[in-house]
Every structure is written in C-alpha cells, then in structure tokens.
C-alpha cells in the first residue's frame, strides 16, 4: 500500500470536506436556483415571447411578500403546457434508454431528465414559484441533506478497495460458497 499516494488521496478528500463547509451557502443558492427553475422559466418565457416572470398566468401577480393570501390561480393553459412538457420529457427519457448508452452516461441523462421533470412539477404544480421563499429553503435544505447522505456514504463505499489489499474486498457469496464458508446464522438462500 503506497502511503504517499494514500496521503495525497486523503488530502483530496480533505479539500472535498473543506469545500463542503466553505461552499455551503453557495451550494444552497445553486439548489434554490435549480429548484426555482429560473432557467426553465426564462426559456419558456422566451419561447412564448413574453417577458420573464409572466409565464405564471395571464394576470401577472406581484410576488407576495410573506404569504400568498392574494389568490390568483395560474391559468389552465400553463398547467397543460407543463403537463405536455412532462410527457415529452418522459418520451425523451425512455428514448434515451433505448440508445444503449454506457451505464455512466445512461445514469447521467436519466438523472438530468428526471430532475427537469421534478423541477417542472415543483415549480408550477406545487407552486414553489411565487410561493413563500421559506418553502424553497425547506426544499433545498432537505435535498442538501439527502446529497450529504449520498456523498459521504459513497465516500466510504467507493474508496474501500483503494488500498489494493484484501481490505474491503468482497468475499462474495459465490466465493464463500466455493470455499465452503457460507455465512451462516441465516437460512441459506435458495440457490439460483
């Protein structure tokens, strides 16, 4: 096991950890931006040839300061166009899966399309856009924690075999079975 390499990797991980803390506010802002789908909204506005911020409905409601007591429901047209975009994106994601991409690319595109769809649902169907800003904070915080959960857990799983030693190697069931060491204490699974 190359200690120097290890230490280099460790410092790589430190900087990841450090940037987590330093970038906390920035990450938060990015998440808010993504989930308020500012970009999507702008694109739709441009496409429909209207001023940005007016896609929400025929009657433009100034964003309520604290809470939406002023009730001006968005127009049916907006809802239907969001719905149609969702259907198009569904077709896209199914289509992409038929292309036979490499696994990494397939995962990437699936997640991107799913996030777009989720953004549409959240922004318009769930009225995050134009709703109280606190809702964005709540959503981005929970997404942030979810990302933390995924990243730090994967920081363990993905570096286990980096030592190149037996450490972290999977004594898989098949291997164990060959060696006659089936982990026991459980009923043996039905052999496939």
């Amino acid at each position, binding site marked *: 096991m190359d200690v120097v390499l290890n230490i280099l990797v460790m410092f790589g991980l430190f900087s990841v950890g450090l940037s987590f803390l330093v970038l906390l506010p920035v990450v938060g802002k990015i998440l808010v931006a993504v989930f308020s789908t500012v970009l999507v909204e702008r694109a739709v506005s441009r496409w429909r040839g209207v001023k940005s911020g007016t896609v929400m409905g025929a009657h433009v409601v100034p964003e309520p300061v*604290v*809470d*939406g*007591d002023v*009730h001006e*429901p*968005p127009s*049916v047209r907006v*809802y*239907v166009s969001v*719905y149609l975009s*969702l*259907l198009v994106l*569904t077709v896209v*994601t*199914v289509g*992409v*899966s038929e292309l036979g991409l490499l*696994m990494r690319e*397939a*995962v990437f595109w*699936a*997640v991107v*399309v*799913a996030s777009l*769809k*989720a953004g549409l*649902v*959240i922004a*318009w*169907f*769930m009225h995050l856009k134009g*709703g*109280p800003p*606190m*809702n964005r904070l*709540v*959503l981005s*915080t*929970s*997404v942030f*924690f*979810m990302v933390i*959960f*995924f990243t730090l*857990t*994967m920081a363990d*799983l*993905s570096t286990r075999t980096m030592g190149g030693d037996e450490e972290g190697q*999977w004594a898989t*069931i098949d291997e164990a079975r060959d060696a006659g060491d089936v982990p026991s204490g459980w*009923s043996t*699974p*039905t052999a*496939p």
Partner: protein
Amino acid sequence: MSDTSTSAQRPAWVASFFESATQQRSAANLGMWLFIGQEILFFSGLFMAYIAYRWLYPDTWLSGADALNKTMGTANTVVLLTSSLTMVLAIRELQVDRIRASIRYIVATVVLGVVFLGVKSVEYAHKFEEGILPGLHYSGESVEGMAGLFFGIYFALTGLHALHVIIGLGLLVWLARRIHLGLVTSENDSLAENIGLYWHLVDLVWIFLFPMLYLVR
C-alpha cells in the same frame, strides 16, 4: 391588543389561537412543505441503498432492469403525470368557486390513482408468477448475481410508493367529501392545497424511481 378588532372579519374556520386567516394559511403551507422535506429524506434511504448496491453489483442491476416491464412502467408514469394535472386543475376549479368541476377533477385523480395501482398489481402478479420475490424468497431465473437484493430494493421502493398512493387516495376521497359539504372552500383551501402537494410528492418520487429502476441499464 385584543381579538375584538379583528373578530368582525374573522371567518369561523380560523382557529382561536391564530391571529388571522393569513397566518393560519401560511402556517399550514409551511407545515406541509416541512412534511415534504421529511418525506424526501425518508425515500432517500431507499435511494441510498439503490445507489450503494448499484455501485457494488453493477451486473445485477443491468440484468435487473431488463427483467422489469418497461411498457407498464412508462404507462404508469403517464398515468401519474396525468393525475397530477387533474389534481392541480381540481384545486384551480375550487379556487374559482366551481365546486362541481373541482370534485369531478378529484374523482378523475382518484380513478387515475386506482389505474396506477391496478397496473402495479398486474406487474407484481407477473413477477410473483416468475418466482421473483424480494430477498430470501427470490427464485426467479432471469437475473444474475444478487437478484434477491435488487428485487428487495425494487419491492421496497415501489411498495412504499404504492402505500403512499393508497394513503393519497384516501385523502382525496376525504377531500372531495369536505368540498362537497362546503367545509373546504375557495377561501379556506389549505386542506386542498396540502393534499395536492402530497399528491405531487407521490408523483415526484415516481419521476425518479421510474428511470432508476426501469430504464437505466
């Protein structure tokens, strides 16, 4: 300060401990979003398991996705997306005081939810016939490697999602009744908004669940 100054305009549905209808509505809205936040974390556990084991057993996941019925998955996606549309339309109709239309849209949402569950149970039934059961009970032949694990996650994820759909259906029926009785109105629509938010959450989970389980190979 006292309550008397506001009590003249104070509707009966505003609880005594709230200052105003606005305060009550915004509290309900924030509460629901917090609930959605915790639901995201709840499902993140299963997605975490999915990611971790996908990393450890990529081959199993390849053949696992092949074993699932993509057509039914896509159909269910369309059904759920449509039900989300009928849901927002139901709330919109309620807000412009078209009660009958609103209830009709809720009924449509419920029907779509039932269709979703129907497709899901057909899918489950096929799996069971092929001996595809979660974990220990897996006895199918189509999937290589840690098939029990893959289907453990598949059934746990889709099962919990279906449970959320069932709860949502119950809530929708209850909502329709309350709208019918005039207990939920265009003014006092927090309940409708929140059940709507819940229904969209169920949709959101499926939006991620569908490509991850059915599509990505």
